[in-house]
């Protein structure tokens, strides 16, 4: 069973059997519209809290995706190179951006859970 942690800037971190995935939320996907291009970092790149780790470009805007905690990129979702629309189709599933390692999983306690994020949406 996957657990989601959310940020105010509409990123999520999904915990899935001990693995962590970073992406943009279903809400962010809807706001951006058709995604046309995703710029991803190289595997192995480390980001500090607050760094821009990816860029998502849609027909309407360019959005920066932030690392809201210190992380290291394990692998990137290479399917997005040819199928950026995966983010529109399944933002919090197949449309993940990065698989990551966390420097300190304890930092996730600063994130919102599903209920708190749903509350923010309203």
């Amino acid at each position: 069973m996957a657990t989601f942690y959310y940020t105010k800037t509409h990123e999520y971190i999904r915990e899935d059997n001990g693995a962590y995935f970073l992406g943009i939320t279903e809400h962010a996907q809807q706001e951006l519209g058709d995604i046309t291009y995703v710029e991803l970092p190289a595997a192995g790149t480390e980001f500090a809290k607050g760094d821009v780790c990816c860029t998502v470009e849609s027909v309407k805007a360019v959005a920066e995706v932030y690392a809201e905690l210190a992380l290291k990129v394990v692998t990137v979702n290479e399917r997005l190179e040819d199928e950026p629309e995966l983010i529109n189709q399944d933002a919090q599933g197949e449309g993940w951006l990065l698989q990551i390692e966390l420097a300190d999983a304890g930092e996730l306690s600063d994130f919102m859970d599903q209920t708190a994020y749903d509350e923010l949406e309203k």
Partner: protein
Amino acid sequence: MTFIPHTPAQRAQMLAAIGVDDIEQLLDTIPAALRLRRDLAVPAAQGEVELAGELQELLVVNQFIPPRRVFAGGGLYPHHVPAVVDELSHRGEFYTAYTPYQPEISQGMLQCIYEFQSYICLLTGMEISNASGYDGGTTLADAVQMALASHRGQRRRLIFAPHVDPQYREVVATYNIGMEMDLQQLAPVEGEFTSADRLNELLDDDTAAVVFQYPDCLGYLDDELEMLIGEVHRREALAIVLFYPFAAGLLKTPGELGADIVCGEAQCLGNYMGFGGPLLGFLACTAKLVRVLPGRLIGRTICERDGQPGAGFVMTLQAREQHIRRAKATSNICSNEALLALRACLYMGSVGRAGFTQLAALCHSNACLARERLLQIGGLSDFYANRQFFNEFTLKFPPGKRDLAYDHALSCGMLAGIKPDARDLPDLDDALTFAFTEVHCEDDIQALVNCLKEEL
């Protein structure tokens, strides 16, 4: 319609609207000591006949050197411009076109830019070219920004290989001021090409790119460029090659040597030297770098015309950074030079593939002939012996003789090369860099040789 803004009546109206009596009152806040309080020292207006007479007097003072007696290059070259280029590029449809990106009214101009991009890709061996830039120097500065952006600001070092034109280096430094670059210059070692070891002394994990000039600013070709580019790639840095596109008629393209970005000056393709402008920059790269390429990319697409399948031209990509995320743009200009790009297309179309190769071969053989004859004059020697060149090379003069010879040639109506910038190698103070093209014939070359001989 009047072209003179602010008539006295309008000024009075504007002053009344803000409640000020006259302009003087408006300027009250400027300290009196800072006011000029007199008219600018500009001559009075003249009648048309008077003015034309005065300008003619000024014109006859100009010293005109015909292209055949210009033996100087350094970025701009006296190539022949076929009459068809002037004739067609002066057509009103092209001459007055401005911001021609609306596909429904600009098919001709868009097709021309598309073809320009195609020619640049062929000449550079790159996959992608933009719609052109202002000049060679600014396209190099843009290429550097591309390299920094492609590393997402994680790498700051930029290395210049030996003999990249110092003026281009200055453009990179001033245009990109504030980019926090770590500019490094690999010093030339007399008589030696750059070795991998020497390059690797500067090349580190903070290096975003290494800039090479090919042929270099003294005219020479580094036989080992391909190997050096391999070294650059080994450190995951980019290789930027500043290229003279005419050389593509004979040499391997920078793309074949492994370059990631190729830029430079395309004045040589159907454009005049002018007074150093207007010029035509080009910027090309691998498909991988298309997202950081500044400017516009015109594409060919399939469309329906009168119910039949056909082709049309549209603006396919312009990274939106240049408009809405300007801090992330990879150019401070993001414009093109469409009229001169059109002339380059007309030029390439008129000389054709075989013609272009023949012209390049002629440039080279003229340069070889000139070098041979110049070296027969006692006292002149190759600046770098045993180096290959395309149409430009550098000769050393006996101490103190260089300027005398240059000035004497000028008094004979010849531009005997250019004086290379000596800041990297003081020995260049006694050298001249000569360039030859298809416009020079044996008589021109002999005239240069005879003239220089008189001073040596």
